[in-house]
């Protein structure tokens, strides 16, 4: 090919600002998180409606089971034991919605436009995953506030709270990617909604969110040990109410799951763009 035509000077900056690699990834993640915050700012009712379920779990289920004392949680009051589990659960429920959102964006033509911008698929999925983290975080603040009102003895140590932020974001990133991966397989919104409902409750019950793993039958213990939600709850419980846990394992599992999820969803994203 002969020399490319001289482009008008007005385009001269297009290559000089070709951001690459980790900077590009970081820039896209920040962009999608900002957009998520803007959407949240315009529609705060969702924050309230989505708070109903976790509040019911804490107030109705939590208070009742505290009285029955059916679940042995050592010297930790049951409501304290439950609160971190409910934070993880509400983050899970929000994250599972992201697969539906990406199919909606595809049907609305928005995904097409995003894919035509200089955004690699991994960066697009990572952006969405961390945006889910932002929304889950906003929800976690509500649950923490309600739990504090109910008298749960939570930590106010800023370093531990920072840890909570990381755990909630990584957990939401993984589950949103799980949902986007399934979206890339089933491609239809109603099918994904069915699958989403079919997997969220089992993920929740087959974890240590409501009761210790040691109470479960053997087969359920096995499932619970490969369920990233269990590690999310373990870490949250350790950080918020000081129960013993191995943070190395918790953070490694959550970080690894988030990365694996981003790669899997990015690999299937092409199916959604055709």
């Amino acid at each position: 090919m002969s020399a490319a035509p001289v482009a008008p000077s007005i385009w001269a900056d297009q290559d000089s600002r070709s951001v690459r690699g980790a900077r590009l990834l970081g820039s896209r993640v920040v962009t999608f998180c900002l957009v998520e915050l803007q959407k949240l700012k315009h529609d705060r009712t969702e924050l309230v409606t989505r708070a109903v379920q976790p509040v019911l779990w804490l107030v109705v289920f939590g208070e009742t089971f505290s009285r029955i004392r059916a679940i042995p949680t050592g010297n930790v009051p049951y409501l304290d034991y439950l609160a971190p589990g409910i934070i993880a659960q509400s983050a899970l429920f929000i994250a599972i919605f992201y697969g539906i959102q990406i199919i909606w964006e595809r049907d609305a033509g928005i995904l097409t436009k995003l894919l035509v911008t200089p955004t690699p698929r991994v960066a697009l999925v990572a952006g969405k995953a961390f945006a889910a983290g932002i929304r889950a975080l906003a929800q976690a603040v509500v649950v923490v506030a309600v739990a504090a009102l109910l008298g749960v003895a939570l930590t106010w140590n800023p370093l531990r709270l920072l840890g909570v932020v990381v755990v909630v974001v990584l957990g939401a990133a993984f589950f949103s990617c799980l949902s986007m991966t399934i979206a890339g397989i089933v491609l239809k919104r109603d099918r994904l909604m069915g699958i989403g409902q079919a997997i969220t409750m089992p993920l929740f019950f087959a974890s240590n969110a409501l009761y210790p793993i040691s109470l479960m039958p053997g087969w359920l213990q096995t499932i619970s040990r490969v369920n990233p939600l269990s590690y999310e709850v373990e870490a949250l419980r350790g950080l918020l109410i000081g129960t013993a846990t191995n943070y190395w394992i918790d953070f490694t599992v959550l970080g690894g799951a988030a990365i694996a999820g981003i790669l899997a969803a990015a690999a299937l994203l092409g199916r959604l763009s055709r």
Partner: protein
Amino acid sequence: MSDAISISHVSYRFGDHLAVEDLSLDVHPGEIFGLLGPNGAGKTTTIRLINTLLPLQDGEVHVYGHDLRHEAMAVRRRLGYVPQQLSIEGGLTGRENVMWFARLFDVPRAERTERVDEVLAMVDLTDVAGRLASTYSGGMVRRLELAQALVNRPAVLVLDEPTVGLDPVARDSVWARVVDMQERYGTTVLLTTHYMEEADALCDRVALMHLGRLRAVGRPDELKTAQGPGASLEDVFRAFTGGNLVENERGGLRSVRSTRRTIHLG
């Protein structure tokens, strides 16, 4: 002279269906180029190949000298794209929608606000930029999409049926922006439409596609003159496809009668 977009021997297959067949086409820098044809002609597939949404199967495409197969990111940096569907984020304001794309195109932070204001003014949405986009009319949405595509100051603007579903006033206003922007920035515009009269009035050159194949390329007046005195672009189209636009849906009866010739003018 090398071209803004150069397509050579491109074919694309969806399973058994050959959507684009051995297409070769050059779009010159700074022109408004129209890809015309009925539904199923292969226009949208061609566009989706150029904007990197579909992987190239056969043939080659270069955008300002950049090979689509190996430099997809460089191509995307030069493109602005408005898809057929009205597609904006209704949960954001008009300004936020444009700012989002300014960030996705890595417009430097120092210039972002200025650029966003500039394109919003260009599409006449400055006054309503603070409103949620979900409250916009169809024509406003389309103009907002133009602003999103223009904030990058693209070398090539790709518009897929930009005026479909809009009322005549909104259509005129969209076309006025396209021409304005083309004049101001020298942007190359590649658009698809099946409104022949619009293509005639607006495009420097047009290509007629039918059933995945290129049937004719040239300036609208050349094509009309070659067809005969008093011919419209619609007549030219009919001559090359053996039918009119509506009857020539994909695989229609008339397609059997259509000729397989391609002429190149200009």
